């Protein structure tokens, strides 16, 4: 894969690709990398979701890519503007790990699983099937999503490379 075909998705960011390109996000910990794909239109989208719910937001101008409940609608909207249809979309996701093990079980510590739950809720609301996931655990992941074939490549330090 040629390096400049990478389309970077930063932390609390989202991006879309049409026909070619590989969407990539690095260092997912408790964040969730969620991808949507319409194989017929060859439109791919990826969101790097950091927090489950925008209700807790205290920021002035909301970064909608940061929260699961706002990122997914925006991702769907941007993919539709490239010719994708929501009823053809399929989802995959990775991340949502719990990086540190603590005796305490406060909400912040459980942020990974909560991100995953919130993403699933949103997918259900849109009727988008979740084809595959690699979530949980206690390790970080880097993911690449190929717009050409809809394959999600997951790299982690301890588990090596995995394809979904």
């Amino acid at each position, binding site marked *: 894969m040629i390096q400049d075909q990478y389309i970077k998705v930063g932390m609390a960011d989202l991006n879309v690709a049409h026909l070619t390109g590989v969407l990539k996000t690095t*260092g997912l*910990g408790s964040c969730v990398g969620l991808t949507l794909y319409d194989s017929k239109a060859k439109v791919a989208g990826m969101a790097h979701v950091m927090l489950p719910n925008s209700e807790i*937001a205290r920021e002035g101008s909301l970064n909608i890519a940061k929260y699961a409940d706002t990122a997914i609608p925006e991702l769907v909207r941007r993919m539709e503007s490239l010719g994708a249809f929501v009823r053809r979309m399929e989802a995959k996701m990775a991340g949502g790990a719990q*990086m*540190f*093990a603590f005796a305490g079980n406060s909400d912040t510590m459980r942020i990974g699983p909560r991100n995953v739950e919130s993403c699933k809720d949103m997918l259900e609301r849109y009727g988008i099937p979740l084809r595959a996931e690699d979530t949980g655990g206690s390790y970080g992941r880097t993911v690449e999503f190929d717009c050409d074939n809809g394959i999600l490549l997951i790299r*982690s330090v301890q588990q090596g490379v995995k394809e979904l």
Partner: protein
Amino acid sequence: MELFHRFADFQMDVLKEVGNIGAGHAATALSKLLDKPVDMLVPKVRMVEFEEIADSVGGAEQVVIAIFLRVEGETPGNLFFILTLDSAKKLLRNLVGIEVVDDEHYSEMEISALNEIGNILAGSYLSSLADFTQLYMSPTVPSLAMDMAGAILSYGLLQFGQMGDHALLIDTKFLDGNEEVEGHFFLIPDPESFDKIFAALGVGDA
């Protein structure tokens, strides 16, 4: 981010001093453990974008060893002690005479030793800070992870995540005399902690 625009230069200097004192004590502790001089660089206090948080330790995908403590009490925040894999190995060799053979996997003994080193250093960082500010700070039990820097450090950003896309980072780098061991202390106070730190040190905007 509006919250931080009103930080004056002298307040940034105070935060730098906070990093200096904390890491200074930790470096002394490390120097005693190693029985070697340890140098410390002037702390950097920066507003960083979330994306850039891992830049000073080699980027989001760089594998590092991190000991994380959540600070509770009057000024909650997150404290990371970060070592490169290479430095961790040297620390283990110098300190406890363990030779790491396998780069990928650390044994329980090695992890436990690193955890304890992290605990000592982070503990001295925090207790000196608590003495200096006369604020109550209580660390959680430390937790160790060996993983991508981005995945680890993003954990320290969650409190800032609700406020904006930047975090205030107090980064102190230190090296032992032969520049063999390189480590970083990252202190990321929660957004609401700053007023208390400033007030305690007499630079609040009263």
